[in-house]
């Protein structure tokens, strides 16, 4: 169970959110809503353990994630505004490099298969910097697919710049993850239908 316990965060003198609470069980999704600049990304970064809230704690299985440290972070898949891809490397080289550092076993066949599923098989030898924004996003989503065993998915605007068929592919993958008992926390400004109805958290 992932819990947020009376979390308060400020940016400068402005309170982003105060005394925020929620809990998420296995197989549940949470959609974080809010206008631009309301602190959605900040909340997701707190859930990843990158940022520390001014007050309150994030608990995983009834333990503070600060105390869990690496035991928590190796359960998390995070896809933020930056895709962690090196422009000069090809999609395949990028995935090999980042997955090996993440300690996720993957061979070239798995990586090619994941890229093919994202409809990128014709772009295997192209440096990522020459791909479009949507194609880059799909490379990052291929990485997500390979590391899908990690139970907690924290996705910041994952649908941005995807075309219609990729959007459907992603929402199917998210639905599958949740129905397999995974945790999903995401933000989006688009109308996306998941098979599971997400809980909704609105930040003002």
């Amino acid at each position, binding site marked *: 169970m992932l819990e947020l316990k009376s979390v308060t965060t400020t940016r400068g003198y402005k309170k982003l959110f105060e005394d925020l609470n929620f809990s998420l069980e296995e197989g549940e999704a949470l959609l974080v809503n809010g206008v631009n600049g309301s602190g959605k990304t900040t909340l997701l970064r707190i859930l990843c353990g990158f940022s520390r809230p001014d007050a309150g704690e994030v608990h995983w299985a009834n333990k503070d994630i600060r105390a869990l440290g*690496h035991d928590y972070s*190796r359960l998390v898949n995070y896809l933020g505004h930056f895709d962690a891809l090196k422009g*000069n490397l090809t999609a395949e080289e990028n995935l090999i490099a980042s997955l090996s*550092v993440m300690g996720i076993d993957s061979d070239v066949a798995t990586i090619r298969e994941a890229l093919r599923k994202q409809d990128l098989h014709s772009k295997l030898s192209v440096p990522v910097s020459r791909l479009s924004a949507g194609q880059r996003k799909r490379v990052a989503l291929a990485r997500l697919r390979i590391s899908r065993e990690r139970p907690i998915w924290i996705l910041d605007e994952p649908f941005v710049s995807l075309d219609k068929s990729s959007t459907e592919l992603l929402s199917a993958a998210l639905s599958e993850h949740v129905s397999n008992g995974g945790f999903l926390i995401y933000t989006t400004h688009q109308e996306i239908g998941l098979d599971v109805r997400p809980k909704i958290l609105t930040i003002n």
Partner: protein
Amino acid sequence: MSSRSLFLAVLLREFKISLTQKTDIATIFFFFLIVASLFPFAVGPDTGSLRTVGPGVVWVAALLSSLLALHRMFEGDFIDGSLEQFLLSGEPLVLIVVSKIFAHWLFTTLPIVILSPFVGMQFGISSEASWIMALTLLIGTPVLSLIGSVGAALTLGVRSGAALTALLILPLYIPVLIFGVGGTVAALQGVETTGHFSILLAFLCLSLALCPLATSAALKIALE
């Protein structure tokens, strides 16, 4: 994952990235050559005075080239979000940092160390003393990279970070410079150099133990 395979995975990743940035590496290499070659023009062709300033010039040129490359160490990974993924790798960040520093030294500074005896001979330094100088650089430049990594991490995301790194780091380079040049001068004068090498090795051990910890703490702060 074992520490060794993580170390190698990061090293391989850095190697691949370096291969795509060959011009950056060549720039550093030629910067070293040009800075070192400027001095004979300034000092004049007198062999005696060239031999006197030679060890200092080569060391300062190597130090400045290493400084020139510092900002590359974490900036790319910071901007494109790779550092965030490192934090989520579930592996100790400090080990990733050590591997990155080693890779950085290997691909930007080691070529300079290898070239240094030949530049030394250009200053009329005997070949024996030139090899001693290369050895002081071989031990001393990793210390520069280790200390520099702290500065590079502290100034991530700061405007004109590269200049700020230089201001923060250069004073800390002084002890390494003194004993590096001192060792070479001692070799030129035919004096025992063991003391200089012991102190350089002590610097290396100390910075290897402390700097990666400080650097990974600074990286975590940069990501908050």
